[in-house]
């Protein structure tokens, strides 16, 4: 026993070293995107408050460019409102009556500020200042004024960590606008402005400059949110599919204010999917 203790004490540094290295390697390997406790992420209470304090200072830095893109977006929306108003007037006149059709808004938005953002890693995340208490839940989509930026990964009480679109492990279901050619968008590296859309069927018609939008096949994003613009077709691994190089619409280096999308039918759709699993297991 004494010998053992002496041995451990003599080589204690190697024991300590091994333990730390093992812990690090475990962290490296098990840092799965989906099963993670909030404590090891930038959305925990301490890191969250440090970042929100710091971002109240640095938040002013990009105001100019953000303002510009907001104004641009505002002008576009204003145009659309005018356009729709005139269409509505025409249609009302044509229809002759004015019974309003009840519509239910399926998606609503939670506005949030970005308090920490990264673009230089292979797996990028950013942190937002809204959490469970504000209705943010894991799996919700996040957009900014220009388009899709990510999906909520873990939500703390007041903060949440979002998997950025610039994360090599994350894929998004997208399609070419005004068509039904669906593919999968991912980011492959280093350049925060470029993404790749894979698995677009070969018979798809497209031209460079076409917009890529969300497909609406997940509960995270409604259909038609812009993601990027096709630059050109690149060589793909599989000959039966196209791969496109895409310029992303959002500028990830300056994202500052975002909106989290809440799908009010999410529970219903998920429970249907769960029901499906149960019934197929029964068989």
């Amino acid at each position, binding site marked *: 026993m004494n010998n053992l203790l002496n041995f451990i004490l003599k080589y*204690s*540094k190697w024991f*300590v*070293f091994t333990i*730390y*290295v093992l*812990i*690090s*390697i*475990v*962290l*490296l*390997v098990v*840092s799965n995107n989906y099963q993670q406790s909030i404590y*090891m*992420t*930038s959305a*925990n209470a301490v*890191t969250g408050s*440090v*970042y929100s304090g*710091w971002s109240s200072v640095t938040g002013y830095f990009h105001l100019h460019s953000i303002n510009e893109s907001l104004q641009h977006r505002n002008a576009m929306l204003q145009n659309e409102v005018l356009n729709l108003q005139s269409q509505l007037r025409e249609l009302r006149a044509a229809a002759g009556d004015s019974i309003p059709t009840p519509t239910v808004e399926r998606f609503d938005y939670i506005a949030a500020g970005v308090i*920490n953002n*990264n673009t*230089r*890693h*292979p*797996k*990028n*995340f950013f942190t937002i200042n809204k959490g469970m208490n504000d209705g943010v839940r894991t799996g919700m989509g996040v957009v900014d004024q220009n388009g899709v930026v990510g999906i909520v990964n873990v939500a703390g009480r007041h903060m949440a*960590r979002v998997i950025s679109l610039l994360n*090599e492990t994350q894929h998004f279901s997208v399609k070419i606008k005004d068509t039904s050619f669906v593919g999968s968008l991912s980011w492959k*590296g*280093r350049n925060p402005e470029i993404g790749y859309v894979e698995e677009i069927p070969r018979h798809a018609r497209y031209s460079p400059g076409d917009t890529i939008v969300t497909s609406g096949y997940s509960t995270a994003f409604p259909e038609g949110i812009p993601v990027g613009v096709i630059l050109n077709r690149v060589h793909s691994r599989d000959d039966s599919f196209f791969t496109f190089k895409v310029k992303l619409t959002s500028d990830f280096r300056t994202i500052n204010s975002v909106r989290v999308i809440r799908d009010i039918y999410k529970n219903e759709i998920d429970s249907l999917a769960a029901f499906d699993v149960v019934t197929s297991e029964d068989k």
Partner: protein
Amino acid sequence: MIVLVLAQVLVCNRIMLFGVAVAFVFIYVVVSLPMKLKTDWLLTWAFVSGLLVDVFVDTPGVNALSCTLLAMMKKPVLYAYIPRDDHTKNVVPSLSTLGFAVYAKYLLTMSALYCVMVFTIEYFSFVSVKEIVTMSAASAVLTFLILLAIDSLIISRREKRL
């Protein structure tokens, strides 16, 4: 240590100079701890500061692992440049104790080792080996320069007090 970690996560990690160079200022903790400190404690400081940076930056394990490995290499690196005797056994590595030539060599080696480890661990299978080498080299030089500056600032303050 807290100051260095905060400087790292709030400022240095957000700046990638020319798209290749990142300064890792927080390894100053490992670099500058006195040699008489037991290796166990040195490893602990290294691991904890690396882990803190990881939690902030969402890179679990990357900095913790590199920092622990760096702490283990500290002694061999320093004593490769100066003889290990009674006089140097308890030295606190800095410009004033080692002189410019030795300290610069020591610091550059440590920065280079750290950058190679960090980029290899994090970017392996993500970018080409060539890019990893470029990023490591550029970051090592940047880290070296900034740490040299930090160290000389700390010295001048110490001297003023005397």
